């Protein structure tokens, strides 16, 4: 019996290990090929690199303007996520504490809007904001992310704030604190766990998003990382070795984020999905 059990355990382990290798193998391939010469990539894509030359990386960094794109991505992601968190938590606080027909109508509209796919909005979106001349700006992109990010974030905050008893706020009000002070000093710190979840979901969404920035950011200098990878890959598709280096470069930042925050990310994604 115990022999059977341990045999089964071993088989399960080997199965998982094999699947793991299968899942990771594509990344391994682009990593090994990013160090090879162009001819070597074509003639033997499966071989290991014989030397670790960084030539491909140097030219990929230059041609895709990597550092610039990285800076753009960081700026857009950080600004958008911070603003979404501030605005959505305030809106949710208002909707929970000042109950009225209006506030329940707003919540319904927000929930309904979460169903709308971006593709159903993008044509009028580009038409309207294109005619107003409000495209091609990183700051406007952050503004749009705020608009698209508010529904889910507000909904998640709303569920959390509903469970907070009013006693704490009452005490602060009695002590003479203003509305905004009560919110920033009493409520917002309590929201920390849900704020982490929302921040992680929104970072992953905005950092990786392609379609919205591809419609908004028209000039080369504004490109975020997914955009510059896309244009680079399209242009240098014959030069596979540099293209591989470009892919590795564009994956590195999010992997670093993953390594630093793995527990929060797994938990945040689990919480977010079950909502």
């Amino acid at each position, binding site marked *: 019996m115990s022999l059977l059990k341990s045999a089964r355990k071993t088989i399960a382990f080997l199965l998982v290990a094999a699947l793991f290798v299968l899942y990771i193998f594509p990344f391994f391939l682009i990593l090994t090929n990013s160090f090879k010469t162009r001819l070597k990539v074509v003639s033997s894509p499966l071989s290991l690199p014989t030397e670790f030359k960084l030539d491909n990386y140097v030219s990929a960094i230059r041609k895709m303007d990597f550092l610039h794109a990285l800076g753009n991505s960081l700026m857009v992601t950080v600004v958008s996520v911070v603003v979404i968190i501030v605005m959505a938590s305030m809106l949710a606080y208002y909707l929970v504490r000042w109950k009225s027909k209006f506030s329940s109508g707003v919540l319904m509209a927000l929930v309904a809007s979460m169903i709308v796919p971006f593709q159903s909005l993008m044509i009028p979106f580009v038409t309207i904001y294109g005619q107003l001349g409000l495209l091609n700006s990183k700051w406007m992109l952050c503004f749009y992310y705020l608009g698209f990010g*508010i529904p889910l974030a507000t909904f998640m905050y709303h569920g959390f704030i509903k469970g907070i008893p009013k006693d704490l706020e*009452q005490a602060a009000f009695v002590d003479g604190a203003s509305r905004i002070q009560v919110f920033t000093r009493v409520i917002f710190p309590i929201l920390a766990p849900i704020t982490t979840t929302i921040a992680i979901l929104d970072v992953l969404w905005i950092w990786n998003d392609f379609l919205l920035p591809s419609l908004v950011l028209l000039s080369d200098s504004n490109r975020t990382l997914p955009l510059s990878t896309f244009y680079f890959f399209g242009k240098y598709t014959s030069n596979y070795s540099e293209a591989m280096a470009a892919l590795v470069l564009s994956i590195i930042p999010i992997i670093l984020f993953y390594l630093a925050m793995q527990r929060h990310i797994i938990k945040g994604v689990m919480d977010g999905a079950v909502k």
Partner: protein
Amino acid sequence: MYEEKLSGKIKSFLTFGFIPLTVFTLVMAVPFFVGLYMTFTDSSGGTITTDFIGLSNYAAAFQDPLFWDSMLLTLQYVLFSLILTNVIAFVLALLVTSGMKGQNFFRLGFFTPNLIGGIILGFVWQFVFSRVFVYFGQQLDMGLLSSSWLGDPHKALWALIIVGVWQNSGYMMLIYIAGIQGIDKSLLEAASLDGASSWGQLFRIKIPLMVSAFTISLFLTLQRSFMVYDTNLSLTNGGPYRSTEMIAMHVYNEAFKFQNFGPGQAKAIVLFLIVAAIAMVQVGVMKRLEVES
């Protein structure tokens, strides 16, 4: 303190609700209603006009054979992705909750594709399909792999399905893990004391108690694969000859490549109606489950 006079209520709204609601209205609500309005007017070429043309944009959309081709293709993609993603994700979840060595490490590994944007994932696989597989096939003289899958309409669809399953199964695995962890341990212990086999425990206890995890995961996969765009763009770009143009890409191309804004937006509204219908069904199913449990 919350039962204030009208002036106090207005002040609270201006403090907390006004800015976020204005931004939401400008970015989501206005384009939504303008988009609806556009479908009934002759708004070609990216300008919004007031010339009402009734339902002719919708008529043009439904008469476009490419729209139906794309819809049919998307349904095929969704069907296979839905089944494969969920079967694999469920099996992965069972394996990495069985208490084996390094199971947390494996979880992290299976989830990794989810962290990376679809554009980059598509390019990674473009290399794998067009270079590595072909190299493999030629070396081993395997007919199935000796020419690139991306050059053949039928195989390119399967390439997209493989990438979609690879991308999403780690995420769905997390949902199933949450479901498994939610099961009361004493139930499983009691069952194994009564001599229930592990298959018996799986089918009689685990699966019935995980209905909500299945529901969430199935609907999430449904929505994600129905709206697939990024990997479609970077892996096949709809090719060869528009044969792998999924519905989201079809709408994009209709508007921004071929400048058919009116019919394009009509198709976008049809897309919205389908997604909304799916969501309604989901809400209904979830409600019924809650009542039963």
